[in-house]
C-alpha cells in the first residue's frame, strides 16, 4: 500500500471536518433562502403593479417636462450598476453577473462607461477600472435593508439627473427558483414612452403631478426588487454549491473508509504471517 494507515486516517478526519462545515453552511443558506424568498415573492406584486401603472400612463406620450423622461438621442455616457455578493462559495453566481457586465461594457467605449458596484466580489473585480467606479456598496452580506436600497436608488437617480449618465443599466441576477437563476442587464433609466392607444383614464389631479409621484416610487420599488432578486439568487446558489460540496465529501469519505479498512486488514494479515513464519523458524 502506497499510503500508511495514519495518512489515510488524517485525510478522513480532514474531509469529515470540511463536510461538517459545508453542511452547516448549506443549512444556514437554506434558512436564509426561505426567509428572503418569501420576502421576495411578497414584494413582487407591488413592483409589478407599479410598472403596469406607469406603462399605462406613459402610453403614447412624449416627454412632458419630467426630468426622468428626458430623452437623449445621442447615446453617450452609460452608468452600469453591478450587483454581486460579499462572500464567495456561491458557485458561478458572481462569475455569471460579472461576465455579463463585462460583455455589456465591451459594447461601449470604455471611457464612457461608469460603474456602481454592489458587493465585495464585484469591487475586487472592477478595482482596476479605477475612476470609472463611482460608488461601491460593500458589507451587505446578502441581507436586504431599506436604507441601503434607498441610498443606491438615490445615487443612480442623482447620476442621471446631473447628466453624469445618459442611460442607467443594472446588471443583476434574477431569481427563478432554487435551481435556476439568470444574470440579466436591465434598463433602469431613462424611461421610454411606449407607443399605444390610450385607455381613457381620468387623471387626478393631473398627469404631471401623478408622474412626479409615481416615477420615484417606481424607481425605488425597482431598486428594491433587483436587490432582493440578487440576494435570493445568491443564497440559492450558495445552497446549491454547498449541497454539491457536501455530496462530494460524502463520496470521498466512503472511498477512503473502504481504503482504510483494506489497509488495516492488510497490516493485520502481514503481522500474522510474520508471527507465524517466525514461529516456524524457531520450531525448525
Amino acid at each position: 500500500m502506497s499510503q500508511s494507515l495514519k495518512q489515510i486516517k488524517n485525510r478522513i478526519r480532514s474531509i469529515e471536518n470540511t463536510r461538517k462545515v459545508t453542511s452547516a453552511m448549506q443549512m444556514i443558506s437554506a434558512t436564509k433562502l426561505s426567509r428572503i424568498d418569501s420576502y421576495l415573492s411578497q414584494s413582487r406584486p407591488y413592483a409589478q403593479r407599479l410598472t403596469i401603472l406607469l406603462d399605462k400612463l406613459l402610453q403614447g406620450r412624449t416627454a412632458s417636462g419630467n426630468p426622468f423622461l428626458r430623452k437623449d438621442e445621442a447615446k453617450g455616457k452609460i452608468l452600469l450598476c453591478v450587483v454581486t455578493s460579499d462572500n464567495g462559495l456561491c458557485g458561478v453566481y458572481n462569475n455569471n453577473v460579472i461576465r455579463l457586465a463585462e460583455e455589456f461594457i465591451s459594447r461601449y467605449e470604455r471611457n464612457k462607461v461608469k460603474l456602481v458596484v454592489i458587493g465585495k466580489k464585484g469591487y475586487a473585480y472592477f478595482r482596476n477600472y479605477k475612476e470609472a467606479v463611482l460608488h461601491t456598496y460593500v458589507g451587505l452580506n446578502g441581507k436586504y435593508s431599506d436604507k441601503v436600497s434607498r441610498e443606491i436608488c438615490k445615487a443612480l437617480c442623482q447620476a442621471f439627473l446631473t447628466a453624469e449618465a445618459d442611460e442607467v443599466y443594472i446588471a443583476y441576477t434574477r431569481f427563478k427558483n432554487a435551481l435556476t437563476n439568470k444574470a440579466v442587464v436591465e434598463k433602469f433609466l431613462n424611461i421610454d414612452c411606449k407607443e399605444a392607444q390610450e385607455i381613457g383614464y381620468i387623471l387626478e389631479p393631473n398627469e404631471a403631478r401623478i408622474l412626479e409621484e409615481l416615477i420615484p416610487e417606481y424607481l425605488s420599488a425597482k431598486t428594491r426588487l433587483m436587490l432582493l432578486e440578487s440576494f435570493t439568487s445568491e443564497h440559492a446558489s450558495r445552497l446549491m454549491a454547498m449541497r454539491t460540496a457536501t455530496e462530494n465529501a460524502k463520496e470521498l469519505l466512503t472511498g477512503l473508509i473502504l481504503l482504510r479498512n483494506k489497509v488495516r486488514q492488510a497490516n493485520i494479515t502481514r503481522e500474522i504471517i510474520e508471527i507465524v513464519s517466525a514461529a516456524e523458524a524457531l520450531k525448525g
Partner: protein
Amino acid sequence: MASLKSRVPPKIMEKDFLLTILCPDKKLYEGRIKSLIVPSELGYLGVLANHAPLITNLVPGKITIRNPSDEITVLHAHGKGFLEVFKNNVTLLVSAA
C-alpha cells in the same frame, strides 16, 4: 318614458368590485367590496362599483373599506400611494401602511 328605459344598461350592474391593496413588502387586502374611501390628493374620494377608469395619487390618511356584508375596515396609510380604478378592478398601492 322610452328615453328613460334606454338609459338602463342592458346587463345587470354589479354591486361590488375587486379591491387589491399592495404594500412594498406584502399584500394588505384582497377581496370583493362594496365601497372604498381613500385620501386622494384633492380630498377624500369614494369609489363604488362601476366607477369610471381613474388614476390618482394618494396622501397619508384613512382608507375605509366596506365589504358586501356591510362590515367596515379602516386602514391607515402613512406614505405616498396610488389608486387605479379599471373595470371594477381597483388596485391601491401604498408605500407604507
